[in-house]
């Protein structure tokens, strides 16, 4: 029984004219048949499934469709083709630093973010101090959020997010947060969550990290699935060689 099943998922982004133009231009171009929509397939025919307790590492160069895939898995986007089956709750920690409101205080932002992640008010009341302690922001609680340094912001974001307790956890480059000391702390915290038994999907540019932590690996290249296997070591080696330009892109053996 797989906890997450991604079945032949393809995602099409629509880009092109429509983003920049206004109403007048839109009608003018419609009338003159000059209206162009460019299709862009961020992911093409990606298929994999995860069992409970699996730890999947997704690797690939920039623009491989990793983040888009995560958005579909977390339900923010719908796949254009194929389907995603999820069992149980899901928490996606994507681009942690964004989505805060600069005018609100740190305290208010903490609650707002907690609410977004699906925590209850009681849970937030109970753990608020713990969050602030972990982020080391005791003196800044009632300051407007915009006065924090960017390091502090991501520390707070991480601290709030690290309390999640989902069945499926999605991490997009969140393991590398803050300065040296905090990074160590956050990595430990992440490992704690992962070892708590959640099925985890990790996107990382650090091959070391993937090699060390993951039990399965998915390699994407320009939206296409190069490999999905539990032979992490082997794929990591190939990927490294590919990055170094030693071998061409391997073709998936299915």
């Amino acid at each position, binding site marked *: 029984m797989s906890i997450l099943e991604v079945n032949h998922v393809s995602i099409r982004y629509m880009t092109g004219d429509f983003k920049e133009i*206004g*109403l*007048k231009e839109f009608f003018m171009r419609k009338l003159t048949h000059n209206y162009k929509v460019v299709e862009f397939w961020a992911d093409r025919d990606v298929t994999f499934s995860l069992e409970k307790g699996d730890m999947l590492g997704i690797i690939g160069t920039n623009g491989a469709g990793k983040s888009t895939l995560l958005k579909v898995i977390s*339900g*923010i986007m719908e796949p254009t083709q194929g389907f995603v089956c999820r069992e149980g709750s899901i928490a996606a920690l994507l681009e942690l630093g964004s*989505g805060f409101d600069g005018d609100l205080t740190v305290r*208010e932002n903490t609650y707002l973010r907690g609410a977004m*992640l699906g925590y209850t008010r009681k849970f937030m009341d109970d753990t608020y101090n713990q969050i602030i302690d972990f982020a080391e922001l005791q003196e800044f609680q009632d300051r407007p959020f915009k006065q924090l340094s960017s390091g502090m912001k991501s520390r707070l974001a991480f601290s709030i997010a690290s309390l999640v307790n989902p069945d499926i956890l999605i991490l997009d480059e969140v393991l590398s947060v803050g300065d040296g000391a905090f990074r160590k702390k956050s990595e430990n915290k992440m490992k704690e969550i992962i070892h708590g038994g959640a099925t985890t999907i990790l996107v990382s540019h650090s091959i070391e990290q993937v090699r060390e932590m993951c039990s399965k690996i998915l390699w994407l290249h320009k939206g296409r699935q190069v490999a999905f296997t539990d032979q992490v070591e082997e794929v990591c080696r190939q990927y490294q060689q590919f990055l170094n330009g030693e071998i061409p892109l391997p073709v998936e053996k299915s």
Partner: protein
Amino acid sequence: MFNKLLRHQFLFEELVKRDFKKKYKRTVLGMAWSILSPLLMLLVMRLVFTQFFGRGMEHYTTYLFCGNLVFSYFSESTGQGMTSLMGNAGIFTKVNVPKYLFLFSKNVQTLINFGLTLCVFFVFCVLDGITFTWKFICLLYPICCLVLFNVGVGLILSAMFVFFRDIQYLWSVFTQLLMYMSAIFYTIDSYSYTVQCLFLLNPLYLFIRYFRKIVIEATIPTIWFHLLMLADVIIVFGIGCWMYKKYNTRFLYYV
């Protein structure tokens, strides 16, 4: 949908709180502005228009206030609702939350404003020598309709705003036009019967008319009047919901 709302209750409360705090940030009087601004508006209109239209008309202040009350709620609610979805793009592209929450939270805020203004309105009614009857209870009907109507318009506008920012400017012109067509400071008695019927096509006029009937004339409008209002509300709300349903996953591409 109600299950969903319950599940996101905490988030919804926090969003409402945030919108409130942001609105009254750096204002000395804070919430008092919600009462003061319609009053000042009323004062201006009263000073200007009594010279032209209000002569010899009984309860002109109340007449004016009815129009103002409904219209300012409408324009505030839709104007702010329009940008609500776009303004929260940073949130809904990162977290999977129902997108209508952002609009609803703005609407709660304007509804509270409306409630405060309504209290002031009743005080003015007393000052203007209006007798309160049991028929005032009927006001709940246009108020409920108006709330849903505003939510519906907000849904439509906020969805369109994501696709075309031009809506912002078009809408402000349109509200201006609507204001002049809603008989806020003049009466329509001097127009021919056909023209008077045309006014019924304007949903806002219906709401204002309902208020005036109850408060000034102490009569309950006909059942057809009720149904006409209801039809307007259902149409607008329906279109709004349909747009959100249709574009729910597509908003993402435009921000």
